[in-house]
């Protein structure tokens, strides 16, 4: 990504709230980031950090009620998606921005064949006839690596395996040639060998379709292998954003560092105790004063407990929200 390029998506100061019985929960609290054409950005964090809500809000899919975008803008190719009427949003959704979900079985309609569902999208957004759409759908299934697509397209979702269903979802999402694909935990429900196949397929297709991909995931390994940049979220905030190499090799935020250390990974030598992040993610109704990571942080000071740090640029594409970022020992 070169700096002179215009961002494809520009999210500014986004705040999303959910009305619950216990009160108003701020799922995202002032999130800003840019996505450039053709890049893959990983949106990482633990459950409840707001990564999925961020992905959903880009497509205007926040369930409302109880959810609501209360502030901020999502600018996609010059248009603000937040203020766009639902009808125009529907035209963008599925054609220019697409989304794939963790569990394709819930996203596919069980009573229609794959063909039915795929041609539906194509005839609506591309204005193809049913016959043309059918042909295009078979081509698309072939591209996502489904063997014998002419036969498979006549089947119902339950007749396919998990990996095949996810491929069908990808084929549907890409059938209109979107500029941006939001993939929400696309491989979490799959086995490792299938996950490897699907991730490979996504990156191949990305090159072919020249689209940007936002990969929402909790798996840092997946991010390291497939993304150009990573955005780390914690309790509704972005706490670090950096290119993949500096994020993994020189994490600046103590949370990123702790997360990287604590994941069980294949090691040369077995260790007795895994490094851990103490405590747990605070719930959204009992956020601590100041830095939200303060209670679990090993570098916490009085300053952190009083004021919340803001996301500050360190270099052009690196930003961190911490008063005491991890310093680079390697210089």
């Amino acid at each position, binding site marked *: 990504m070169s700096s002179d390029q215009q961002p494809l998506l520009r999210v500014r100061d986004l705040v999303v709230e959910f009305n619950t019985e216990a009160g108003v929960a701020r799922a995202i609290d002032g999130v800003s980031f840019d996505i450039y054409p053709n890049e893959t950005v990983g949106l990482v964090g*633990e*459950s409840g950090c707001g990564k999925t809500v961020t992905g959903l809000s880009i497509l205007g899919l926040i369930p409302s009620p109880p959810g609501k975008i209360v502030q901020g803008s999502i600018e996609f190719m010059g248009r603000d998606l937040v203020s766009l009427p639902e009808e125009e949003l529907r035209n963008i959704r599925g054609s220019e921005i697409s989304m794939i979900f963790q569990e394709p079985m819930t996203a596919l309609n069980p009573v229609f064949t794959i063909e039915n569902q795929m041609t539906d999208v194509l005839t609506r957004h591309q204005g193809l006839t049913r016959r043309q759409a059918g042909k295009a759908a078979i081509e698309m299934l072939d591209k996502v690596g489904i063997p014998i697509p002419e036969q498979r397209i006549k089947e119902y979702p339950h007749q396919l*395996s998990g*990996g*095949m269903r996810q491929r069908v979802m990808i084929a549907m999402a890409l059938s209109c040639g979107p500029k941006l694909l939001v993939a929400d935990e696309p491989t979490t429900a799959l*086995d*490792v*060998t*299938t*996950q*490897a*196949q699907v*991730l*490979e397929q996504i990156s191949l297709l990305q090159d072919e379709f020249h689209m940007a991909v936002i990969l929402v995931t*909790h*798996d*840092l*390994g*997946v*991010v*390291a*292998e497939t993304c150009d940049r990573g955005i780390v979220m914690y309790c509704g905030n972005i706490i670090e954003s950096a290119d*993949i*190499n500096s*994020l*993994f*090799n020189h994490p600046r935020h103590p949370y990123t560092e*702790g*997360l*990287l250390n*604590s*994941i*069980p*990974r*294949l*090691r040369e030598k*077995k*260790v*007795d*105790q*895994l*490094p*851990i*992040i103490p405590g*747990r*993610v605070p719930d959204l109704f009992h956020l601590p004063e100041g830095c939200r990571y303060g209670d679990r942080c090993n570098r916490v000071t009085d300053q952190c407990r009083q004021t919340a740090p803001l996301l500050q640029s360190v270099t052009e594409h690196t930003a961190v929200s911490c008063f005491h970022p991890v310093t680079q020992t390697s210089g």
Partner: protein
Amino acid sequence: MSTPLLEVRDLKKHFPVKSGLFHRTTAHLRAVDGVSFTIEKGRTLGLVGESGCGKSTLGRAILRLLEPSSGDVLLNGTSIIDTPRSGMLSLRRKMQMIFQDPYSSLSPRRTVAQTIREPLDVHSIGTPAERRQRVDELLDVVSMGLQVRDRYPHEFSGGQRQRIGIARALALNPEFIVADEPVSALDVSVQSQVLNLIADLKRDLGIAFLFISHDLAVIQHVSDDVGVMYLGKLVEFASAEDLYRNPKHPYTRALIAAIPVPEPGRKRARLIVKGEVPSPINPPSGCPFHTRCAEVKAICRSELPAAVDVGEGGRSHLVNCHLYGKASD
């Protein structure tokens, strides 16, 4: 050699597949299809495999939560399978289970104390006061405060619920615990906490574990020995050290290669296995992995490979693969 703590002999669990108007059994799903291994006292066996390989069924069949179709399981030399139902209660004291889903593994209408106490009640251990004290002890072991005693499961996070489930499993001082994917439903930072807890229990209480997981990295952290399962069969069995340093079976190698590594730039060696796991109702002939194996030979399609010991330095390293063994004939 002394009797091992647990010995599993050619264990099979086949589920009948019924179809048609009269629910005739038309086929069998071979969930576990002839598995044998032993676990020594205080050791942990990691069992790894993809979904549907039969690893969870195996864990439940060992504890006789499912009746095995054939084969035997011996705990301290006594057959669990031959024990009449009335005699199971005393055996259950010695073996327990930790479950995968922290949300469904605790009864929603029972308090934490009631849940942890139940094993003591059922086995009539101690006086009510002693049971109460034991519950407090157990809460302490799993690092939960005593103030949680009278709360209900829905008030806790996944990691905390998992700790409560572990406390319940520990109540009877078991010698052996089956842990079925105990951390896969937890968040990354909580996973390590629970894994460390399990490592502590193993060290401090000398409990032997059968640790079931799909995650090779997790398995490496907790296991002394590792068994790799594919379509109801063990395909490789070795010490954790040997298996990770020197994986023999093509499937094990593919599994290891497929794990995404959190180190950018170190792109995985592209050893992507093709296709998907075949159905255990109609497993392939010969070696079950031959449909996806990159090194498949003619013999693999017709003949089931027997276990070959390829261990070095006196350590056993069993692999069921035609690539090994025949050359030494």
